[in-house]
C-alpha cells in the first residue's frame, strides 16, 4: 500500500534533471524533484513536474499494429517480429542493404541506440543510421570536432554559475533549458554580465544586461566583427594562441574583410554595440558562450559553430573551469545517441566508418563485415524514400512534424515499401507505418542517458509498460534474433560493458558507478572519476584549429511576395512534436492552440488583432494559426513554435541543407501573412 519512490531522469531536454517518481499500485501518481541530483538540485521545470502525466495516457500503444488497407489491426509480437524481419530482409535482398535505413532516437537510452545502430550495420551492412541530431546539433558535432576534436559541451552546467560574462547566442534557454538558465541566474546574482544575441526578445533576452537583436542568420558577421575588434584592440590571448592553436594566420586574413562597420551593417545593429560586446567578452576573467539552435539550424550552421569556437579560442576562453563553449543539447539523450554511433559516418565514440582501423575493430568485435561507406543522413534518407531507400525502421522519431518542408516528407514516407515505427504513441509518422511497434517510455525501462554536459546517468524502471508494449531494448533483441543476429543481452548493463570495451572514452562507465550521480565522459577506466571540463592541457585533436567560417546569407530573404522572416522554435510548456506534452493535460492547458507571434506594427498594417486566425504561407505550403501580437519579435519577423500538428510550422520551413552537416535551415525562411476571412475566424 505504501507508495514507492523511484529516482530517475527527466525524459525531456538535454539538461538531464533528476526526477523522483511516486508509484502507487503500479501507476505513477506524481513527480518530485530530486534534491540530491548534481544538475537540478531539487528543482524542475514545468515539463519535469508533470512528466508523469502522459505515461498512463489512454492513447499509449499497447499492441503491435499492422496496416491493412487504411487502418491498423492489432497483432501479436509473435507475428510482428517475423513480419518485420522478413520484410527488411526481403528489401535488403532485392535492393541491397543500402536500401534499408534506420532512424534511432535521441529519446532512447544509450544501450538501445547502440543496439539499433549495431543491428542496422550488422544486418544490412549499411551505415544508413541517423537520428534527429541531424536537425539540431549536427553542426556542433561536425564543427566542434574540426576545431577542438570533440563535439560536445566543453564544461559542466554548474560551471556557468562561475562565469563573469555569458554570451548567449541563439538560445532561449529560459524556455528550452530552464534549469540551465537557473545556473546562469546564479552567475548574474554574483555580478556576471549576460549578453544575448537573438533576433527575438525572448525571455532570456528580457533578463539580460544586453540584447543584440541581429538580423536573422547574421551570426557570422557579428562574431567576425567581434573578433576583428578584439584583434584590433589587442584583447586576444596571444600566449594561448601561440601554444595551443593553429590556423591563426588564416583567421586573421579572413577577418581582414570583416570590418566592424561591415559586420554592423549586416547584422542591423550599431558598430559600437559590437565593439562593446566584444570588449566585455574579451575582458571578462571567465567567459562562457552558450549557444543552441539559433547557431546551428542554418544553411551555414557548421560555419556558425566554427565562428563561435574561433571566438572562444581567440580569447583563450576554453579549456578551463567556467570558461568554455556550451552548446545546449535539445533532447534528453541526443548527446548519447551521437556518442553511441547513431550517425551515418561514425561508429560509437566518433570512430569514423571510413577509418580502416575503426572498421577493423568493429568487424572483429561484432564478427560481421561492415560497410566502409558513410551512410545517408536523415534528411537524405527521407528525401530518398521510395528511391534509394525502400524500407525504413524508425525508432521513436517523428519526422512528419520535425523535418523541414513536411508536406514533402509526408509524400516521401508514403512512397516507402515498408516502414516500421516503434513509438509510445501513434504519432503523425506512425500513421504512415506498415508496422507499428509499441515501446516503453522513460519510466518503464532501465538504461543510461547522457545529458548535455556529457554525464552518463542511470534511468531506472519504475513501472511495467502498458499492455503488451515492450522496452526498445527487448524489441531490438527480438528483432535481431529474427534477422539471424545473436543479441544475447539480458540486461542493458551488459550492453554498457560492451560499449565500454569498444570506446576508450567510455571505458570506465559501469552501471553500478552511475547509481549516485552519474559520470561525465571521458572516463577511460573504472578508477577515473569523470571529466568536468574538456581540453584542459591539450585539445582532443591535439592543437586547436581556427577554421575560417564562410558566411552564407540565409537562403531565402524576404521579398515582395513573401515579406516576412519566419523563425521557428520551442515554447516552454511544450516539447518538440508534442507527442508527450500535448497529451499531458497540465501542459496542454498552458497552451492548447498553435500561435504565431507578430510585431504590433506589422499586425496593425495587416489589420490583424490579438487572437485572430491568420494564414502563414511560404513557397512550400501554408498553415493557419492564431495571432499573438507581441513585441518579442522584431519588426518584419514572425515566430511560430513547431509543436503543433494542426499547424505544422515545418510545412513552411526551407529544406535547404548545410553542406557539411546536412542540417536544414529551420530558423530562416520567407513567408507572407494574411488574416483569414471572417467566416473562418471560428468565433
Amino acid at each position, binding site marked *: 500500500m505504501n507508495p514507492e519512490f523511484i529516482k530517475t531522469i527527466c525524459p525531456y531536454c538535454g539538461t538531464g534533471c533528476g526526477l523522483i517518481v511516486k508509484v502507487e499500485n503500479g501507476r505513477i501518481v506524481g513527480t518530485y524533484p530530486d534534491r540530491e541530483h548534481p544538475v537540478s538540485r531539487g528543482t524542475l521545470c514545468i515539463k519535469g513536474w508533470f512528466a508523469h502525466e502522459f505515461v498512463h495516457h489512454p492513447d499509449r500503444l499497447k499492441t503491435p499494429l499492422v496496416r491493412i488497407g487504411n487502418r491498423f489491426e492489432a497483432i501479436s509480437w509473435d507475428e510482428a517480429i517475423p513480419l518485420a524481419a522478413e520484410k527488411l530482409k526481403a528489401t535488403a535482398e532485392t535492393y541491397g542493404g543500402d536500401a534499408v535505413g534506420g532512424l534511432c532516437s535521441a529519446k532512447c537510452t544509450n544501450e538501445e541506440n547502440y543496439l539499433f545502430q549495431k543491428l542496422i550495420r550488422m544486418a544490412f551492412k549499411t551505415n544508413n543510421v541517423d537520428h534527429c541530431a541531424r536537425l539540431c546539433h549536427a553542426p556542433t558535432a561536425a564543427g566542434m570536432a574540426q576545431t577542438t576534436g570533440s563535439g560536445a559541451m566543453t564544461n559542466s552546467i554548474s560551471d556557468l554559475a562561475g562565469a563573469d560574462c555569458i554570451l548567449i547566442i541563439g538560445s532561449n534557454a529560459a524556455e528550452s533549458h530552464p534549469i540551465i538558465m537557473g545556473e546562469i541566474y546564479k552567475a548574474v546574482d554574483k555580478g556576471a554580465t549576460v549578453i544575448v544575441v537573438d533576433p527575438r526578445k525572448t525571455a532570456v533576452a528580457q533578463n539580460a544586461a544586453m540584447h543584440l537583436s541581429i538580423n536573422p542568420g547574421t551570426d557570422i558577421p557579428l562574431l567576425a566583427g567581434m573578433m576583428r575588434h578584439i584583434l584590433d584592440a589587442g584583447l586576444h590571448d596571444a600566449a594561448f594562441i601561440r601554444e595551443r592553436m593553429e590556423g591563426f594566420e588564416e583567421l586573421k586574413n579572413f577577418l581582414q574583410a570583416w570590418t566592424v562597420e561591415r559586420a554592423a551593417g549586416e547584422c542591423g545593429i550599431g558598430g559600437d554595440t559590437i565593439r562593446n560586446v566584444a570588449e566585455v567578452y574579451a575582458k571578462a576573467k571567465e567567459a562562457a558562450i552558450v549557444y543552441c539552435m539559433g547557431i546551428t539550424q542554418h544553411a551555414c550552421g557548421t560555419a556558425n559553430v566554427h565562428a563561435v569556437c574561433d571566438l572562444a579560442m581567440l580569447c583563450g576562453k576554453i579549456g578551463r573551469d567556467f570558461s568554455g563553449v556550451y552548446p545546449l543539447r535539445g533532447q534528453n539523450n541526443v548527446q548519447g545517441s551521437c556518442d553511441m554511433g547513431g550517425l551515418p559516418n561514425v561508429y560509437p565514440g566518433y570512430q569514423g566508418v571510413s577509418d580502416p582501423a575503426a572498421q577493423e575493430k568493429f568487424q572483429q568485435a561484432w564478427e560481421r563485415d561492415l560497410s566502409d561507406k558513410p551512410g545517408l543522413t536523415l534528411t537524405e534518407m527521407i528525401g530518398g524514400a521510395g528511391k534509394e531507400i525502400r524500407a525504413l525502421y524508425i525508432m521513436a522519431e517523428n519526422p512528419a512534424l520535425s523535418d523541414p518542408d513536411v508536406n514533402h516528407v509526408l509524400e516521401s514516407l508514403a512512397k516507402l515499401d515498408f516502414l516500421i515505427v516503434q513509438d509510445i504513441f501513434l504519432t503523425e509518422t506512425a500513421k504512415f507505418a506498415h508496422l507499428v511497434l509499441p515501446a516503453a517510455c522513460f519510466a518503464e525501462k532501465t538504461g543510461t542517458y547522457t545529458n548535455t554536459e556529457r554525464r552518463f546517468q542511470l534511468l531506472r524502471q519504475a513501472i511495467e509498460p502498458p499492455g503488451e508494449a515492450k522496452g526498445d531494448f527487448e524489441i531490438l533483441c527480438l528483432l535481431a534474433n529474427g534477422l539471424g543476429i545473436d543479441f544475447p543481452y539480458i540486461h542493458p548493463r551488459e550492453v554498457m560493458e560492451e560499449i565500454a570495451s569498444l570506446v576508450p572514452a567510455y571505458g570506465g562507465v559501469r552501471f553500478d558507478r552511475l547509481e549516485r550521480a552519474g559520470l561525465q565522459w571521458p572516463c577511460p577506466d573504472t578508477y577515473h572519476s569523470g571529466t568536468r571540463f574538456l581540453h584542459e592541457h591539450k585539445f582532443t585533436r591535439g592543437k586547436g584549429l581556427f577554421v575560417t567560417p564562410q558566411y552564407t546569407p540565409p537562403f531565402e530573404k524576404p521579398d515582395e511576395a513573401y515579406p516576412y522572416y519566419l523563425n521557428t522554435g520551442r515554447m516552454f510548456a511544450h516539447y518538440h512534436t508534442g507527442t508527450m506534452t500535448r497529451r499531458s493535460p*497540465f501542459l496542454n492547458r498552458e497552451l492548447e492552440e498553435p500561435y504565431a507571434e507578430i510585431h504590433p506594427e506589422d499586425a496593425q498594417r495587416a489589420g490583424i488583432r490579438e487572437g485572430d486566425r491568420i494564414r502563414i504561407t511560404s513557397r512550400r505550403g501554408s498553415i493557419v494559426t492564431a495571432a499573438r501580437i507581441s513585441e518579442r519579435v522584431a519588426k518584419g519577423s514572425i515566430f511560430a513554435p513547431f509543436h503543433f500538428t494542426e499547424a505544422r510550422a515545418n510545412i513552411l520551413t526551407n529544406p535547404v541543407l548545410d553542406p557539411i552537416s546536412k542540417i536544414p535551415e529551420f530558423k530562416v525562411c520567407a513567408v507572407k501573412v494574411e488574416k483569414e476571412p471572417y467566416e473562418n475566424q471560428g468565433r
Partner: protein
Amino acid sequence: MLQKVKDITRSILAEKQADGVLGLIRGQWNIIQPHVFDNLRQVDNLVLEPKWLLAKMAMTVLRSSPEGYRLAVIARGCDERALTELVKRNQMEKDRLLTIGIACSKEQAEICLCQRPYPEKLDAGEPVAGVDPFADETTRDLLVGDSRARMEKWARLLKRCIKCYGCRNSCPICVCIPCKLEDEVWVETGVIPAEMISYHLIRAFHLSDTCVACGACQEACPVHIPLVALQRSMREALRQVYGYEAGLDTEMRSPILYDLFKKPAAGQILPDWINSLENDNES
C-alpha cells in the same frame, strides 16, 4: 536525537498508537526518500536529514488510507505548522494525526531564516533560538527602503520566472485542484516570464494567512527567486496587527476570515464611532 526518534517511532508502532510513521528512509542505492514505516525492522534505516517537508505527503497518505488509520509524522517546526494549517483547512482529521516533533539545527534555522525552528510539541532535540528574518540583509533589501528601488529589484527577480509551478507544487499548503494560477483569466497562459504581478502576487496572497514560511517554494525555484520574502511582510502584518501566526494552533483562526468586526488592519483610520462597535461586539 536520531536514536531518540527511532525509539519513539518503535514505541509508537509497538504500542499501536499509530498504524504508520511517515519519515525519511535511507533506502537502496543510498537514496533518501519519504517512507511510511509500519514495521520495526525498517526503523533502523530511519534518517532525519535533509529537511524534507512531509506535510502534504501525510495528507495524501491519510486520504488514501482506510478509515480509522492513524498516522504519525516525524515533523520539524515547519512541518508541524503546515500540518496544523492543513487541519485548519479541513484537509485531514486532527485525531488521525500524531506528530513526533524534532528540533532543527542552528545551521538549518539560519538557512531558512526560521523564526521558530522547533515544533510546539517537541519530542527530540534541543530547540535553538529563532532567527529574525528582518535582520537578514537580503530580506531587508527586498522589503525595506525606497519603494521604487524595491519595485525594480522585485521586477528583476520575478522576471526570471519560468512558470514551472514548482513553488505551488512544493508548497505544503497549496491543495486546490484546480488552482487559480492555471486559469488564463488570472494568469496569462503560454507565456513566460509568467505575468509577474498576477502569478506571484496571487500566489503570495492566497497564502497570506496560511504560509508557515517553510521555504519549500524557494528551494524548488530553479531561478532562485526569494519567494519566502514575499510572504514575510504579510506574516509580519498579521502578527503585529492581530497577533496571528499561521500554524501555531488549530484554534487560532485567520483574522481575515473570522472575527471580522475586530480591528480591521494596520494603518486604517476608522471613524471614532467605530470604537464602540468594536467593544460591543467582542462576542
